[in-house]
């Protein structure tokens, strides 16, 4: 009895092992045969590029409506593969740099202005000037004179606040400017993310540098610290747990997030309310631009160019706001009403030149850490 069972367990194990080897072999061959697809370039017309698949590498915040993506395929005959990602922008770029010359995909979406200089100096992108260049936001386009990357969306990082905690009897007025944040009536109410570990955290920090200058920011942050600012490591904790205006119903009524975050608070609510429970300050917002680019070494150059053109086309740009909570970079794209109503558009968002950011960021963040966290 038992020795038969043992004998069969051992051969059972052996057969599982061989099945796995076969499975691995089959999957490997299946996967390497897809995606390496069709004809190599030297094709100029869209229809002769049909049957190709172009792969779009993205970060975890990317989202687009299937129907819109399908439009691209209908128009050009090129299929788009968008592997699901759980990485954020930095990880995606890190992988692209590691895979330099032998990219995992053809087009990369998700480099932002804080990573722009690094992306360009790493030399992983092939320049391409999109046919829609003239429709792009001038400020955004000016950041990439060499066209290694193409701007694809705009966003603003601003301080969001919970309306219910302000503007009523016994509560302070809603905060309006960065200077307000150091006032005693807002003591202990602000939560920011760590610029070392969080993208919005870093961007907010850069906003204070842009506003108060390369030396003045230290004074500002000393005052913020004295006013009880709390720091957490990532946006998820700050927004979904500690923020009193969102699902977590936490204790902080002010948190660093995006100008479009109030939209998210009303989207799933029926019937749609007249005002969002949260709002964003218009002062102290920092303009964030996202870029996409063609990876060097791609085997689908022409198709990638067509994809980039599509990404800055009206149909895709109008699909972005409610999927990714970002604003179009293209003039002439209209945003859905709910997005327009609940997203503030800062009149003069703060910004810093990407080269300045690249040159000083590490040093500034070190200094910030010593100042605020120790």
């Amino acid at each position, binding site marked *: 009895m*038992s*020795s038969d069972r*043992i*004998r069969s367990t*051992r051969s059972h*194990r052996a057969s599982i*092992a061989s099945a*796995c080897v076969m*499975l691995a072999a089959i*999957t*490997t061959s299946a*996967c*390497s045969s897809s*995606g390496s697809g069709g004809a190599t370039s030297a094709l100029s017309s869209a229809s002769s590029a049909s049957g190709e698949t172009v792969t779009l590498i993205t970060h*975890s915040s*990317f989202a*687009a*409506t*299937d129907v819109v993506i399908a439009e691209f395929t209908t128009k050009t005959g090129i299929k788009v593969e*968008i*592997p*699901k*990602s*759980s*990485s*954020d922008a*930095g*990880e995606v*770029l*890190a*992988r692209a740099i*590691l*895979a330099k010359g*032998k990219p*995992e995909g053809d087009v990369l979406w998700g480099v932002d202005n804080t*990573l722009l200089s*690094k992306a360009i100096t790493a030399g992983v992108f092939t320049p391409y000037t999109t046919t829609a260049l003239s429709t792009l936001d001038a400020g955004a386009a000016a950041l990439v004179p060499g066209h290694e990357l193409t701007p694809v969306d705009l966003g603003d990082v601003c301080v969001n606040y919970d309306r219910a905690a302000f503007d009523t009897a016994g509560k302070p007025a809603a905060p309006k400017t960065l200077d307000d944040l150091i006032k005693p009536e807002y003591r202990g109410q602000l939560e920011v993310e760590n610029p*070392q*570990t969080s993208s919005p955290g*870093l961007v907010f920090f850069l906003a204070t540098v842009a506003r108060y200058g390369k030396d003045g920011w230290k004074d500002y942050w000393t005052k913020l610290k004295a006013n009880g600012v709390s*720091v*957490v*490591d*990532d*946006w*998820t*904790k700050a*927004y*979904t*747990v500690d923020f009193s205006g*969102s699902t*977590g119903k936490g204790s902080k009524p002010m948190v660093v997030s*995006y100008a479009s*975050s109030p939209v*998210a*608070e009303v989207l*799933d609510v029926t019937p749609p309310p007249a005002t969002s429970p949260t709002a964003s300050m218009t002062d102290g917002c920092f303009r964030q631009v996202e870029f996409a680019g063609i990876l060097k070494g791609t085997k689908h150059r022409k198709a990638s160019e067509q994809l980039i053109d599509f990404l800055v086309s009206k149909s895709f740009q109008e699909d972005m706001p409610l999927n990714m909570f970002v604003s179009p970079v293209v003039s002439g794209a209209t945003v859905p009403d709910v997005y327009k109503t609940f997203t503030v558009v800062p009149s003069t968002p703060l910004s810093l030149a990407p080269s300045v950011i690249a040159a000083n*960021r*590490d040093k500034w963040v070190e200094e910030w850490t010593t100042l605020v*966290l120790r």
Partner: protein
Amino acid sequence: MSARRSPLAPPRWLGWSLAIGPLVALALFFVWPLVAIGSRGLRWSAVRHVLADHGVARVAWFTLWQAAVSTAATFVVALPLTAAVSRFAFRGRRLVIALVGVPFVLPTVVVATAISATLPRSWDGTVRAIIVAHVFFNVAVVVRTVGAAWTQLDARYEDAARTLGASRVTAARTIALPLLRGPILAASAIVFLFTFTSFGVVRLLGGPRHPTLEVEIYRRAAQQVDLPAASALGLVQLVAVIAVLALWARAGRRRPPASALRNRPPATRARRPAERSFVFLATTVTMVALALPIARLVERSLAVPGGHGLAWYRSLSSAGRGTTRALRPLAAFRTSLTTAFISCVIATVVGALAALALTYTRRGRGRGLLGAGLMLPLGTSAVTIGLGLFVAFGQAPLDLRGSAIMVPLAHALIGIPFVVRALAPTLQAIDPRLHDAAATLGASRWQTFALIDVPLARRTLIVGAGMAFAVSLGEFGATSFLTRRSTPTVPIAIANLLARPGRGNVGQAQALAVLLAGVVTVVFVVTDRFAEAR
């Protein structure tokens, strides 16, 4: 009597030939990726910079220290429950053993918020919170690994001690625990390495003031995209882990004495009032403490606008429908379970070979190296493993980037130590006289192995394999760095939900996590049943 070789002892070459498989696997899927990422990323200037940085020294020290304290605390908390389930039979024992494994598998990112909600607010962002969370996640390792071995340990040794005047506690402390040295060292190594490279807990519960090496590596690789700095730190971490493992190998050099193994679960019910209260308290207090954050998680997953309900569960299949971020929860579970199954099989085969190799080789440096070497992946940054595999297998001749085997491979690397560390002590504890007896009854060496060793080791092998399966289900770090597939695993899907604003996302993430917890409980109940069956 010992210097002579008994004709029953396995030949010298057997141990080392068994080791070939595991060594090759380790070299190919761990060492080579490390070399690959190191050669790409490591710059001596960055290394020198990192070594000169006092901040780094402080972070490294903190990482070591919090891991040691977390490990000790985990044992302190886990031992009473371990003793209770090993020595007493009580109603619900099997369920307790299965349930205790659930926290181990839950994705940190979801449970961390539940944990911090259970702790006092003043503990937010403190080291205390980190340690408590570490204990929460790792109690399972101790209870299941040490518990499985303790259950099999013949109770007569402790009984003998008790007849000589020792209380149950003293007998456990002075007799059982020393005899369980092997499994205890194994469990402590695993817990230490896990807490050493812990990322989610440190970030979410410790906050920005208490970074560990892992957090720093991730930050440099994925946020600053500064690969030389990340590699330099990765090297520091690797050196620290190797030093720890060297110490551990020395501690484990002495084999525990062979002790009789029993195969039945304990038959004794607690009879004396003191015993009954002990069992009751140990079980209830520990399980309640573990259950609190999970209960909160369940409650939150049912909290829909307007009260409580199943809305988040129901909306899982329609989440993101029509967009590229469509969730497809069933597909995610299918991916997770398939990945876990494949990685568990790999880990079990390689781990079993390694455990046998460790048993059959003579005591010496080689054996210590093999044992410690297999533990290394547990102590290596997920960033390093993920990116290393990505770089090493991202080019001809072996471009496996798109392949479905990469993620299970990475998971298997982390699962192998569980199998080895569960199995090896048991194999080594088998009384050699049982082999003698079998030989005199006509069993050849192979038959002795199959008919005596395998049945006696089967339980711990299954427990080890079960842990490897669970580890794979809950793995997030290395997976997120590896090749993307069109269907993510459940932890990745959960992280995706949490990364974006939207009322429904958090609720759905929590619902998904609760479902994962349910799946894991079923897995553990089933594997435990297999382990205890005849």
